[in-house]
């Protein structure tokens, strides 16, 4: 069934491409740099979650009534859920890559759908965050005045900037997930033909 001579000639030609030990060491070094930036991103992501929770915690201490306190708790839980959700997606993505192709595509597909859900959850958390923080900011400005100071930077502009960055990131995550879903559908339909 298989023409061995032809394969042997191709195999020989194919394996003629060699990689020197210097190139291999360079690859290891380059991957090391990529690995360090991944670890750094994980630390930054964890740090952002902790800072977000700390800001909500600080706001909770000033909650004016049980409604604001409940809303603050929901926001805090939402921030923690978004972070855990993202960590779980990253973990599953790392695991799935070693699966057989069909299973890999199916898992990637599920992860894309989860990412889209994650984005929706993130947007809900931001909306709740704003619902909780805006009255707190208005109250704070009335009590402390509207002059720009370090406290205002920490309690108003830092959370606003963090939310803007988060929203921009979720838009990217959403468009990537949708593009990958379209690609996976194409790959899956081609796989069934072969």
């Amino acid at each position, binding site marked *: 069934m298989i023409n061995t001579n*032809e394969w042997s000639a191709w195999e020989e030609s194919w394996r003629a*491409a060699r*990689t020197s030990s210097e190139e291999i060491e360079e690859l*290891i070094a380059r*991957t090391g740099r990529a690995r360090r930036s991944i670890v750094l991103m994980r630390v930054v992501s964890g740090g952002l979650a902790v800072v977000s929770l700390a800001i909500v915690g600080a706001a909770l201490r000033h909650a004016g009534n049980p409604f604001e306190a409940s809303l603050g708790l929901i926001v805090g839980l939402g921030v923690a859920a978004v972070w855990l959700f993202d960590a779980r997606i990253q973990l599953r993505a790392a695991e799935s890559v070693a699966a057989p*192709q*069909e299973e890999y595509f199916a898992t990637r597909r599920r992860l894309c759908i989860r990412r889209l859900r994650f984005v929706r959850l993130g947007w809900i958390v931001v909306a709740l965050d704003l619902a909780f923080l805006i009255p707190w900011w208005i109250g704070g400005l009335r009590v402390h005045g509207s002059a720009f100071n370090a406290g205002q930077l920490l309690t108003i502009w830092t959370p606003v900037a963090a939310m803007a960055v988060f929203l921009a990131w979720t838009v990217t995550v959403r468009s990537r997930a949708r593009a990958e879903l379209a690609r996976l559908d194409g*790959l899956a339909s081609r796989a069934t*033909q072969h």
Partner: protein
Amino acid sequence: MTGDATFDRIVRTHGESLSRVASGYARNDADHDDLMQEILVAIWRALPRFRGESSERTFVFRIAHNRGCTHSSERKRRGDEPESIPDSVADQRPGPDEETDRALMRSRLVSAVRTLPELPRQAVLLRLEGFSIAEIAALQDTSENNVSVRLTRARDRLSELLGGGGR
């Protein structure tokens, strides 16, 4: 052995084969380095969860092919065109004609392999790396018969593209 030491050993053991496999999925030579990095990072991330259910070689090549497939589909979607099958080698180093012929043959083979659909391409790349039909079947999670059919069709296509005699 620590995780990093295991990873370094894997790259030293399989790096050369992985680099050849990556060339079968990259759209051109410049794209090869990006894909190689993606594959190695994916191996590093998956390594802590590798429990030895399959051989290390199967584990490593599965990751390479899965990343290769998603990488090439991503490039295709962006509209990057693969390089056409060359009639001559662009970077011809001075040397004997035999060496130039070999370089041209390899360059044409790589370009032809890149035109195959994902699953036959995967089977061909593994065959060229010396995997047996049974090993390819295990890696692709399919029957040996299916692998043989894929390889025969792919061989016909490659012969056609490379101007060989086929059967």
